[in-house]
């Protein structure tokens, strides 16, 4: 399949998902190509008519050199010389690499800068950038690229894109915040799926401890009046549909079970905010300078130097999502611990099978230790990605940094650790249901089967680490693929019924 791009309204989160995760290609419509060509041509006239005014990157060079006025020809000549080594900006010594899907989303986001002519980019250059999506992405380091704007990372991503020699002047086609936008869009797609998976795991836990269902009653939607808590309640009630209502635990479950709709509600809020800012950013023209197309007042259009390359809405949204994984992880750890504690859960203590031999019996006991280190690391990483207090470079002109890379890499690592905690809780809940010979509510059974395909109930001593890691990886993979069977359908194990 191919995503057709006509104007900025085509830069949706869903199209970003198709390009980034499904590997789809893009195609500019004829109208879009013509519009780009017209804007490019008009911009040449604008430059000719505005030789004496400041047009960043056209009558000046960039960054600290902006104060020196140059003719457009001089600038072009100097830039051409600078770009002879096309990876001239690839300064970072390397390290952790940005993920392929994030880079594909970044390329997609870059095309929004071109499509309505706001960077006066020649359509051939636009096509050359779009063609990057037909092959594997180059390596782009996640570290060492934090700068005012995102120009250092762009050196890695676009270094090999052919320059169009005859293309004349362009307005900032290499500037903007496409990395923050693309990485956030990818992060948003995964965050929604991660949250949906987390709700499944927590509902398994609700069933495992036989929590009274009144704490999740739909009446709380109205009583609390919060849209996102309403979404959490709907999701939980959908998954708990048909759950046994009689003979459950006779008094309220510990607080960590009762607060689930509220804590999950905050997660729904955080994810929805990330989706919203990612989609807004995908459609936004963030280039410096930006080019406004001709109107009555400006017959050749006009440019404006601006700070669009600094995306200030996505990093806080990524931070909030990371923080929500920490809070959910904390609650999940409470669950995993309590499920193993018979006096609290009313389950067989430490989840030993009551029918097993007392000497040789085994269970998931001690697995609840595992999240402790994860959580400590998550709490450290999920701190906010604030503006830098430092003077970041010799040039006092470029005096503030874009925190997008930092916010993205922190959220990604926190999410990875969160998947590990979810795998632990899913395993504990599965074991609790196994040793009490119970099945969860019908909508959860296939998911439980998928969990057990990776981590079968513990009936005899075996090392659990590899199984739980496989489950954690399957959960992580599902955030990219949307396959909530956790790969079991692919392997033909999807029909395994829960006990």
């Amino acid at each position, binding site marked *: 399949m191919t995503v057709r791009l006509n104007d900025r309204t085509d830069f949706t989160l869903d199209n970003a998902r198709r390009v980034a995760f499904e590997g789809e290609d893009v195609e500019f419509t004829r109208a879009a190509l013509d519009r780009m060509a017209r804007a490019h041509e008009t911009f040449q006239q604008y430059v000719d008519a505005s030789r004496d005014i*400041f047009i*960043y990157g056209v009558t000046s060079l960039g960054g600290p050199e902006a104060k020196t006025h140059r003719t457009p020809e001089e600038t072009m000549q100097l830039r051409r010389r600078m770009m002879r080594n096309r990876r001239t900006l690839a300064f970072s010594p390397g390290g952790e690499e940005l993920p392929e899907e994030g880079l594909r989303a970044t390329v997609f986001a870059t095309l929004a800068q071109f499509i309505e002519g*706001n960077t006066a980019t020649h359509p051939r250059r636009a096509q050359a950038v779009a063609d990057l999506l037909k092959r594997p992405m180059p390596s782009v380091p996640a570290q060492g690229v934090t700068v*005012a704007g995102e120009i250092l990372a762009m050196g890695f991503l676009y270094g090999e894109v052919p320059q169009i020699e005859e293309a004349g002047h362009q307005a900032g086609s290499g500037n903007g915040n496409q990395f923050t936008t693309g990485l956030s869009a990818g992060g948003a797609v995964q965050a929604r799926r991660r949250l949906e998976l987390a709700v499944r795991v927590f509902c398994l836990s609700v069933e495992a401890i036989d929590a*009274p269902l*009144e*704490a999740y009653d739909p*009446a709380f939607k109205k*009583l*609390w009046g*919060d849209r*996102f*808590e309403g979404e959490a309640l709907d999701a939980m009630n959908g998954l708990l549909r048909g759950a046994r209502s009689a003979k459950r635990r006779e*008094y*309220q479950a*510990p*607080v*960590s079970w009762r*607060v689930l*709709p*509220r804590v999950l*509600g*905050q997660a729904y*809020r*955080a994810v929805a905010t990330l989706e919203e800012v990612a989609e*807004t950013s995908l*459609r*936004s023209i963030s280039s410096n300078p*930006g080019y406004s197309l001709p109107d009555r007042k400006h017959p050749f259009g006009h*440019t*404006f*130097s*601006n*700070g*669009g390359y*600094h*995306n*200030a*809405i996505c990093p*806080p949204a990524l931070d909030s999502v990371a*923080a929500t994984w*920490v*809070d959910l992880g*904390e609650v999940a750890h*409470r669950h995993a611990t*309590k499920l193993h*504690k018979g006096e609290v859960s009313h389950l067989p203590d430490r989840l030993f099978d009551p029918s097993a031999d007392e000497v040789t019996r085994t269970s998931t006991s001690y697995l609840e230790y595992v999240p402790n280190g994860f*959580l400590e690391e998550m*709490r450290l990483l*999920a*701190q*906010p990605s*604030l*503006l*830098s*207090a430092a*003077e970041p470079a010799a040039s006092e*002109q470029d*005096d*503030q940094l874009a925190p997008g890379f930092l916010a993205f890499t922190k959220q990604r690592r926190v999410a990875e650790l969160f998947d590990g905690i979810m795998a632990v809780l899913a395993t504990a809940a599965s074991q609790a249901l196994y040793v009490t010979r119970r099945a969860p509510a019908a909508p959860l059974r296939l998911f439980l089967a998928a969990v057990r395909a990776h981590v079968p109930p513990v009936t005899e001593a075996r090392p659990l680490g590899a199984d739980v890691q496989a489950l954690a990886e399957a959960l992580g993979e599902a955030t990219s693929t949307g396959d909530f069977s956790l790969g079991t359908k692919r392997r033909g194990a999807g029909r395994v019924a829960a006990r």
Partner: protein
Amino acid sequence: MTVVVNSRKDFTLDNFRRVAVGGESVRIGREGATAMREARKAFVRLLDSDRTQFIYGVTTGWGMDAKVRLTPEQQRARARRSFRGGAALGDPLPERAVRGIVFARLASYIEGNAKIRPETARTVASLLEGRLPQIPIDGQVWAGEIVPLAHLLEALPNDLELAEGEALSNGSPCAAALVADVAVQAANRLAIAERVFVLSIEAIQAPLEAYDPDLATLWGDPGEARAIKNLNRLLAGVPKKGRRFYQAPVSWRILPRILGQAHRAVGQVEDVARSSLASASDNPVYEPPSRAHPHGRAMSNGGYHNAAASPALDTLNASWSDLCTLADHHMTKLKRSHVSLLPEQMRQDLGMVGMAQIGFVEEARRAAQRTFIPAAEGDTQNDVAEPVFLAYKKSLVAAECLDTVLAMLAVVASQAYAATEREAPPKLRGFLEAARTHCPPLSREGRRRSPGREIAKLRDAFSEAALTGNVDLV
């Protein structure tokens, strides 16, 4: 004036402001009193229909004792018990926040969801008319809000009836009030920040194209659009010609983006405050009779844990921290002639001004650190604590740091106008004049003055304006 409440819809941010900041009292309206009375009767019928059913805190013990079923005699005997006698300590909450907690407390009562009598609700409301108890800010992190509410209950007479004790100390009125206290000031604080940053834009004579109204459409974000609109309104009438001929440093150009995120953060705090104030958060919550439930229902739940307030406060604190950072960069650059194109150090007149902000910026960064669900567990039943007091405490620090750093930037910008014999933008002349009444322009001859004290006065004026809404300092 008195705020009359009849239903949860009356628990608005505006009514909160009237009660908490404006000092107004609250009266329970006739409709509200009737709803409470009817609900109370229905609840007693529900209870009498089966004294062995599980109704948390009524037919059972509290907290860890939830598993203990009480006999009808025991139920009656403990009717008058409530959690009073707070064990927290530390500096007291601002009085307006305590008033806000009393107001928010009534939301769970007004439609009968807390099953208490209207007389008891009136007694709680009457706290607003006398001397309020002090609620310490530290040591208030536990499951729900029973610890801070115990301090509030010290001021109430002990004439409670069945099931009223726990209805006074359950729920999340503190979270609602604390996030609302920040919300009613946040938009004003941001308006002051926009004024000071516009003074700075004009001080360096930044090219106006970075604030071009077209950017609102090109960027497409409502928060940024609002920031751009406000900046342009405040910049109206400034000279278009003779400005700095090339782009200003990044910290000036990204202002609409950073202010836009601040608008977004303010909006989120306001949203969360609105829904929190109007929510019935008690455990158990009582749902009055319906066709499906002729006696109504008492539902055990986790409403006492407000999970939205702390993250919203954290996000706002981060925005205040970012604005502090930008203000610091502006001050530093305004003083550096080769960057600002202004006289070096404003002709050396500034002295130590512009050198004291770094500590406040760092403190704001610390205050912007995240407030997670605490790792400490409490006990095995009450195993998740609500951290809103921690987030609120950081909000007080972040706001004070921002007011301070903005006052400093206002003084440095003011000096730039004095040194270049220019005027502030027409819309801000009154604002600058008011700021100069606290801290007039400096000169080398006047170095014996103590600008620190003067800046503190300007900071206090900003803090006051955040509460009153007098953001133009008229």
